[in-house]
């Protein structure tokens, strides 16, 4: 029998016996960041492709979600800070080795940009909208004129944001479950997929929905493929990695992960989407709802489970 215990009574809140320093705020923040990144990615993508007209919801209406999600996400992050009044210290330096730092900066840029993006479509969305101030109207004209370069910048930022939500975790060598380079692309894919789901839910245009549906199906397949790779990596890895994987393979997260994330959040909506493409009638809200829900659970499970995993010595 092997025993390992603290004999000096160490029992620090949120650290012992299991690390739980990040509560619900961080997974929510990661989720909303990924969601916003997904929405903004597709909006900018279709603007760059010049398909604004065909993809009205994607480019205009759905983007309203992005700044809201980002602001709520940032609010959650702020909530989670333990030394809140020093928040501004984030913006006194850029530290490239710290995902938290470049995430903060990316959000600092992409949040106002997403607001500007939505604002630049206000007149198209709400006929008769007026900005009241002359300089705002001038700024709007300037943005609309430069929409494609603006979209390019924002698309790059959206990808960074999407990847960042995964890398924030994967950069932590100390947490074996997180410490895999697949997490960046996986979270990006998941973010894109949830973004698409949100757009699909809002879109009333059959053609737009079909297009998005097809992309989403591919994204889900990519995501499943990445998850399989994730586990193959764990199973082929060192003891700490197999230990990490075991949390999902019989461990305490088995049900929440396989049932809610994989089956209900990915496999089932993917099936529904495939059926829809083949002409079967599927309630329009169902696949997006499942994807959005599955994505949320995925972030929670990963953050919770990851904090339990650690090096053994």
């Amino acid at each position, binding site marked *: *029998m*092997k*025993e*390992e*215990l*603290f*004999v*000096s*009574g*160490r*029992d*620090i*809140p*949120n*650290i*012992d016996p299991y*690390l739980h*320093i*990040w509560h619900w705020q961080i997974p929510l923040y990661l989720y909303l960041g990924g969601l916003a990144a997904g929405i903004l990615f597709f909006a900018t993508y279709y603007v760059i492709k010049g398909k604004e007209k065909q993809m009205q919801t994607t480019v205009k209406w759905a983007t309203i979600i992005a700044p809201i999600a980002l602001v709520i996400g940032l609010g959650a*992050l702020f909530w*989670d*800070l*333990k*030394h*809140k009044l*020093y*928040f501004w*210290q*984030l913006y*006194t*330096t850029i*530290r490239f*080795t*710290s*995902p*938290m*730092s470049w*995430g*903060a900066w990316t959000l600092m840029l992409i949040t106002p940009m997403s607001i500007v993006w939505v604002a630049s479509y206000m007149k198209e969305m709400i006929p008769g909208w007026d900005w009241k101030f002359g300089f705002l109207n001038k700024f709007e004209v300037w943005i609309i004129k430069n929409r494609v370069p603006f979209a390019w910048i924002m698309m790059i930022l959206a990808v960074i944001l999407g990847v960042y939500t995964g890398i*924030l975790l994967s*950069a*932590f*060598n*100390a*947490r074996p479950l997180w410490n895999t380079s697949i997490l960046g692309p996986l979270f990006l894919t998941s973010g894109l997929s949830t973004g698409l789901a949100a757009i699909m839910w809002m879109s009333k245009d059959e053609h737009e929905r079909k297009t998005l549906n097809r992309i989403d199906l591919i994204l889900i397949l990519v995501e499943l493929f990445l998850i399989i790779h994730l586990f193959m990596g764990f199973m082929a890895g*060192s003891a700490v990695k197999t230990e990490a994987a075991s949390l999902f393979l019989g461990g305490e997260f088995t049900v929440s992960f396989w049932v809610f994330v994989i089956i209900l959040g990915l496999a089932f909506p993917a099936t529904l989407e495939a059926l829809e493409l083949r002409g079967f009638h599927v309630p329009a809200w169902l696949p997006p709802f499942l994807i959005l829900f599955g994505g949320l659970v995925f972030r929670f499970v990963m953050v919770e489970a990851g*904090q339990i995993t*650690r*090096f*053994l*010595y």
Partner: protein
Amino acid sequence: MRYAMAIDTKKCVGCGDCVVACQTENNVPHGYCRDWIVENVSGSYPSVQIELRSERCNHCDNAPCVRCCPTGASHIVEGGIVLVTHDECIGCGACIESCPYDARYPHPEGYVDKCTFCKHRVDKGQNPACVDVCPTHCLHFGDLDDPNSDVSKALKNRKWKVLAPEAGTEPQLYFLT
């Protein structure tokens, strides 16, 4: 200059004196600690072994906490001591997540706190409080670059290990086995 500590697991009795001395020296609030003792028991009766380790921040050469800190509050100073500047720390918890040794904790005031190798003492040429209090003399501190330092001498003739070397953090706590 490279400060490091060697912990003699053969001598440590796990009394926790290092923990109390650290708490009183550094005003660590009740319920928190910057150092702690792990007892590892292996084998089966009557062939049983105990390893006792007084653990604390490893003041890693490749410190993940410093790497992931978004504000630069976590930093490394002369001698390789990893410190946190309280007024730069936002309490995001990234460094806590990044530490394979769970050596950091959120101070009730909000900032992240940890072992400082008693820099305020070391600067004056003293040992950290834990080292000077240990009744078994199982802690050895000093400059690795100085072959005559306590820690260099302790490491010279003994087998040692570091914790979780595979984490790549290049820890500077050496456990004499």
